[in-house]
């Protein structure tokens, strides 16, 4: 668990979007590198974490995967404000999930921090034959609303890594340009011990990864 200490930044993400678009699968593919076709319905919110490297910096992503069902909407809203990144997901084979993006976006704009980076994700790109939303439509929607855009497949893992990393890259750039107040953790960003000189490394940190293999 050496990796727990050596980070430059912690960034909080949320994943939002209609139920069944593959939010939990995206997270699982990103954190565990596996795909689970029959994933249980997410109840409330689930947590996952992973490291990524951006511009040579170790960034720890803490990701809260939310339930897409309407009944959980009020719970999941509590997470918007404290997140620095949001992945807004729809299913390219289900047009209604694309239509609902407007509502999701309104929700996010209303409750999230104005600086939150939002990445629009058209998931299930492996199901080309069932496609109901074209790439161009997704791209146009993103452009019109100032979002980043990618099509991914949680099943084949296509673009999954990229979606998370690109979002992180954008947030990192915002940190660099001083847009985020990184000393206020309420904005979903925390500076790591590597940044403050690392003098506060707890015991065991020096053992490195090897210690985990015993």
């Amino acid at each position, binding site marked *: 668990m050496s990796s727990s200490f050596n980070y430059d930044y912690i960034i909080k993400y949320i994943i939002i979007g209609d139920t069944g678009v593959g939010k939990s699968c995206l997270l699982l593919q990103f954190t565990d590198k596996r795909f689970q076709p029959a994933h249980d319905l997410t109840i409330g919110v689930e947590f996952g974490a992973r490291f990524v*490297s951006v511009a040579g910096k170790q960034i720890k992503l803490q990701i809260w995967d939310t339930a897409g069902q309407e009944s959980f909407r009020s719970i999941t809203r*509590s*997470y*918007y404000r404290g997140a620095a990144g949001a992945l807004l997901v729809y299913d390219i084979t289900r047009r209604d999930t694309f239509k609902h993006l407007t509502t999701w976006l309104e929700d996010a704009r209303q409750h999230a921090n104005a600086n939150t980076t939002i990445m629009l994700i058209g998931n299930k790109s492996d199901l080309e034959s069932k496609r109901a939303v074209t790439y161009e439509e997704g791209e146009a929607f993103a452009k019109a609303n100032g979002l980043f855009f990618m099509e991914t497949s949680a099943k084949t893992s296509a673009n999954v890594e990229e979606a998370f990393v690109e979002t992180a890259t954008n947030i990192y750039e915002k940190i660099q340009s001083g847009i985020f107040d990184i000393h206020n953790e309420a904005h979903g960003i925390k500076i790591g011990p590597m940044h403050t000189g690392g003098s506060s490394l707890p015991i*065991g940190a020096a053992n490195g990864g090897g210690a985990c293999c015993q």
Partner: protein
Amino acid sequence: MDFFASGLNALRGQKGQHQTGSEIIDRLCERIEHATLLEDRRAAVLALKSCSREHKRDVGTRGVLVLCNMLRRDSMDIDICKAVLETLTVLCQPDTDREGTIEFALEMSNAIMKDASDVAILLDMLEENDFYIRFHVVSLLSTLVLNNAARLQECILTSPIGMSRLIALLDDRREIIRNEGLLLLISLTESNADLQKIVAFENAFERLLAIIDEEGAVSGGIIVQDCLQLVQNLLRYNVSNQNYFRETSCIQRIPSLFEDDTLDSNGRHELPLRDQWSDQKGNNMIMILELIRVLVVPDHSNTAPNQRSMSQCGILQLLIDLSLASNAPQRVKASAFYALAELIRLNKVNQDALSKAVITPAHPPPVPIGDASLSLAAPSRSSTQLSRSSFQSGRGSTVGDRGAQAHRHLEVRERCPAIVEVVAIAVGRYPGCTYSVRAAATCLFQSFVLENPDTQLVLATTLNAPPEDNPNIESHEKPQSPGTLLLSALQGWQDDAETTVADPYNSWFASVLFSHILQNNARAKGIALAITFGDEENGEDPVSLIHAIAAALMVAVKGRADVRVALGYLALLCIWCYDSPKSIKDFLSEGAHLQFLIELISPSSKEDPMVQGLAAFLLGICYEFNWEKDALITRATIQPIILSRIGHDHFAACITRVRESKPFNSVAPFMIVLPSEESDGKLPNLYFDYSFVEFMKRTFERTQKSITLSPENTPTQNGLALPNNAEIESKLTLLQTKLSTQDAELEELRSQLEEAKKLLAQKAHEQEQYENTLAGLREEMRSRQEQHKALEREHEDLLICLAEQDQELTGLKEQLRMLGVDAP
């Protein structure tokens, strides 16, 4: 003054006639609703507040919604808000001295919470920094959560930033608000997983750990206990938050909670107090230990990684010191044993760490006489036991020896392996130890050998007494090993029964510990079989250990000792003989043993039914696994005796009876003695060890039936010696759990590998870039060199050219001179 006078007049009515309370309240409410001037509304609400205690019912029925609306309308006026909040709080608090007020308080609370947006307004008011506003909002919310937590949770969840405002209370510099906020958060997070997650998401762990540090960690006040309670609420049963806790390196912060060198009021370190244990410090420590346990719950996917993190950051060592080498109160030590047990459970690395640990044992607790801080202890244990039986009667004199004991306690004790001290505590070496601590130590021991045959073997070999010419011989304490401690406790009561110590639990705990060393381990059983007592040189017949235990059992039964003694021995013999023909052969080689068991079970026996049941079970095992060729007593001998003298029905009934007895069925998976169980000198209700109960439940049916099978059947014919399904299943589940933990580890390692790979790829990429740059530079250098060469060539050409011109010049000059021109 005019204003007040007019207000008062208005209230009194135009003609100054007397008005009833409810009329006044009516008027006040009307005024609040309809008055256009802020001052009027303010005056009315203050008046309403002042009669809210006297006329709670009237004010509530008429005014609760009026007041709620007022909060919306006049939320900018601090005085109005304060008065409304106070009044609402009064309405929602039941009066303790009057009936029916609880229902009314609930009615009021529900009225306030009927519209979730009213609660949202309360939460919005927390943005206000005014002390009283914040304080009264928190008080009102705390009252509401007591009356109807579920509804309040629902309401808070509808407000996207409501929870984050409540958590911000923890940052309030005014302690009273922070503390009240903390209590409110504790009540809110007790059962609602959604709220727990939001609280964690809002960095609650960090904030709470910071407060704990600030307040002096374990030595801090009740605020530390409250913070720990909230941390626990967030983690218990909440996998997502547990992951988050580990991922944010919070486990690594647990060791600092143990530190207690707080500054006193003069800014000095209170180191001399380090070893003083106030009640509060004990409570705090128990909360810390509970926190550790929440993170290493058995059979949980998070347990293995958490165990690893904990031992790496030193928690294992802290627990060993706390439980064995500190002078913490016994209730703290009991908690520490349980935490330690779960930290090493099914974790080979941590089990090994405990086996290697060496400690300077703490002074044993004195035999309690009215020690107020040790409420667990039973000061009067001896007096009630005096009347029980001769077997227990010795305790009084032990208590009488307290002076001498206390003196001995002050001597510096010698370092010893931690596990030796664990066994010593469990088997009752220290009469002052409570049963709670001894049960906890036993639990730790079980966890220590669980799924660890190597450790079982090592412990079995310590049954042989350490050599007397040990270098330690100079010490005043005889060198002890886990095995020798067990042996002396197993037999001890016989020697002492007529003199002093006669606690039935000494041999009972020793039997339990011993059975854990032997269980499912043929080699350990072999080692134990080889142990003999008696000095042949002095003409004594050597007695094997299994015979010595059988003899002790017989003496206990005949001497009418406490039933626990016999149950302990019988359970040990069952586990020892099960699936071990050699042990059975040795056990039955003394004819009296079979005779004794038969007599115990026979229908005319007046023995305790639980003892009879275990005796029947043991007899069944002795038949079932009696496969040794040269056995003195064979299956063919046993079966007719059982069937004729006892009868199959009675035999089966004996076993069923113990199976259905209350003590047998009420055994908790973790051996535990509640303080209340041993108060007033009672013996706890501990008759069986859980793993024995599980073992018997698994096997008794087959044993019951086996007695009817022909003695000629061989193990292969009837399949009896093959492990039964239950056993296979249990092994399977164990293997499955192992597999799944290994899977998890594999997964983790994989992800680490993946990370490493990525890093490598990145480095490779960087290298490539460097190489590219290098190549570019090389290219540049080459072209520069060429340029250089070209220039040199040019230079040379020029030189040649110059030389030629020089020559030409000289030639021309010569010609000129020849022509008579004076050239320069």
